[in-house]
C-alpha cells in the first residue's frame, strides 16, 4: 500500500531544466576523469602518431571547454536513465515530456547538432534531437537520479550482441569481445571505453552494457569474477595494436567495464556497447 503522507512531490520542470543543462555540459566539457586517461596514455603510448592523436584530444577538450562548444560535432542520440525513488510523486508535465523538452532546449541553446531522424527508413530529421531513449527504473527512497548520455553513433554502430552457449564460458566471452573491438578498429574513435553486459536476456544484456559505460574510468567491478575478466580483456584489447585513432599503438582501450545479471540455464548472453574516447555523460540527484 502506498502511503501518500510520505510521498515527496517533485515539479517536473526541475527535471526539464536539469536535462537541458546536462546535455550541454556533457557535450562541451569532457570530464576530468576522461582527460586523466588521455594524459596517462600519452605518457605510456609508444607510437609517435598515437601520441599526436592524444595531444590533439587534450587540446580539443581544452578548446571545447573554454569556448563552451561541443568537443565533437556528433552530439549523439540522448540516452536518459531516470532512476526514480518509490516515494516520489510528480507534478506538472509528464516526466517523459519534461525529459524531451529538456533535450530540445539544451540542443538549441547549446548549439548541439540535431542528429535524430523520425523513421529509420524515411530519415527525415526531427529538428530538435528528440525523442530521447529513456529507461525508467524504480528504486527505494525519495530521490530521483537522472543520467544523460549523448551517445555518438560512430561507436554505437560498432556495438554487438552474441547469444553464447553456457559451455562457451569465459573463453567464448573473451573471443567475442576482442573480435568486436578488432572489427570496430579505427571506426569507433579509439581509444575506446567498452561496456559489457553479461547475462539476463538479449535486451537486458545490451542495457547492462550501456549502463556499464556510466562507471568511472579505473573503477573495477565489485564482483571478483567480473573484475578479473575486465583485467584480462583490457590487456588483450591493448595487444590488438589498433592504437589512438586506429593509426597503430598500444592504447586501444582506456577501460572496459562489465555489468552482470543472472541468466537462464540455457544461455550466456554477451553484449558489447562501445563508447569512443569522449565517454560523455552527466548525472544529477534531485
Amino acid at each position, binding site marked *: 500500500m502506498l502511503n501518500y503522507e510520505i510521498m515527496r512531490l517533485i515539479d517536473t520542470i526541475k527535471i526539464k531544466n536539469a536535462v537541458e543543462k546536462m546535455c550541454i555540459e556533457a557535450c562541451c566539457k569532457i570530464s576530468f576523469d576522461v582527460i586523466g586517461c588521455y594524459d596517462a596514455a600519452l605518457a605510456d603510448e*609508444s*607510437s*609517435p*602518431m598515437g601520441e*599526436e*592523436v592524444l595531444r*590533439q*584530444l587534450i*587540446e*580539443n577538450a581544452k*578548446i*571545447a571547454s573554454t*569556448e*563552451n*562548444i*561541443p*568537443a*565533437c*560535432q*556528433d*552530439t549523439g542520440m540522448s540516452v536518459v536513465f531516470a532512476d526514480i525513488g518509490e516515494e516520489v510523486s510528480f507534478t506538472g508535465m509528464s516526466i517523459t515530456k519534461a525529459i524531451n523538452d529538456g533535450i530540445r532546449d539544451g540542443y538549441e541553446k547549446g*548549439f*548541439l*547538432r*540535431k*542528429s535524430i531522424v523520425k523513421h529509420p527508413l524515411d*530519415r527525415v*530529421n526531427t*529538428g530538435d534531437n528528440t525523442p530521447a531513449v529513456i529507461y525508467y527504473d524504480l528504486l527505494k527512497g525519495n530521490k530521483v537520479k537522472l543520467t544523460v548520455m549523448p551517445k555518438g553513433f*560512430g561507436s554505437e*554502430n560498432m556495438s554487438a550482441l552474441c547469444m553464447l552457449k553456457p559451455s562457451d564460458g569465459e573463453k567464448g566471452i573473451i573471443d567475442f569481445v576482442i573480435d568486436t573491438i578488432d572489427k570496430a*578498429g*579505427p*571506426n569507433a*574513435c579509439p581509444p575506446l571505453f567498452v561496456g559489457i553486459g553479461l547475462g539476463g536476456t538479449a535486451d537486458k544484456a545490451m542495457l547492462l552494457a550501456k549502463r556499464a559505460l556510466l562507471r568511472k574510468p579505473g573503477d573495477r567491478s565489485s564482483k571478483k569474477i567480473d573484475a578479473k575478466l575486465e583485467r584480462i580483456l583490457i590487456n588483450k584489447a591493448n*595487444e*590488438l*595494436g*589498433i*592504437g589512438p*585513432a*586506429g*593509426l*597503430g*599503438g*598500444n592504447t586501444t582501450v582506456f577501460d572496459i567495464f562489465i555489468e552482470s545479471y543472472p541468466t537462464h540455464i540455457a544461455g550466456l548472453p554477451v553484449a558489447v556497447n562501445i563508447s*569512443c*574516447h*569522449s565517454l560523455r555523460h552527466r548525472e544529477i540527484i534531485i
Partner: protein
Amino acid sequence: MTYKKINLPCKRELLIDLKSGDQVKITGVLYMARDAAHKKITEDFLLTGEFPFDLKEQGIYYSGPAPAAPGCVIGPAGPTTSMRMDIFTPVLLENGLAVMIGKGDRSKEVVESIKRNKAVYLAATGGAAALISRCIKQQEIIAYEELGAEALRKIYVEDFPAIVIIDCDGNNLYKTGREKYRL
C-alpha cells in the same frame, strides 16, 4: 612532427607523392558531404548526368558540423565514419574526385577505385571537432540546404591536419600501423 603541405584542388602528379603514413596539412577548398548529401549527389547524377560541383582534382570531407555559435565561422566539424559513404564513392572517384577525408576503414571496392584513379584517402582525428573547426576559415552551403547539418558545403581550410591512410598504390596505414604494434 614533419608535415607535408598540400593545396586543394590538387594535380594528380602531386598526390602521387603522398605515402600512407604521411602527416599532411591542407590548405584550400574542400567540399563537406556526408550520408544524405552523398545519396542526393548520386541520385542527381543518375537523373541529370551532372554533379552539383566539378569533382576534378577536388577533395571531399566527410563531416556534418554542429551549428555555429555566434561569432564562429562554423560549429565543431570533425570527421564522420567513412565506410557509410563507400557505396557512393567509386562513381565519384571515376568522375574526378581526388581526395577524401574521413575516419575509419574503406571497402575493397573503394580501395580498388583509389588505386585505379590515383586518388588518396586521408583521416582527420575523430572527435577532435572543436580543434579541427579552427582550421575552417570560410563556409557556404552550395546544395541541399534542407538537409541541415548534412547539406553540401564548400569550405576553405588552412593547415587542416590529416594523415594519409590509403595512398594511390593502395597501402593502408590502418593495416600496417596495427601490424606494427600488435603483440
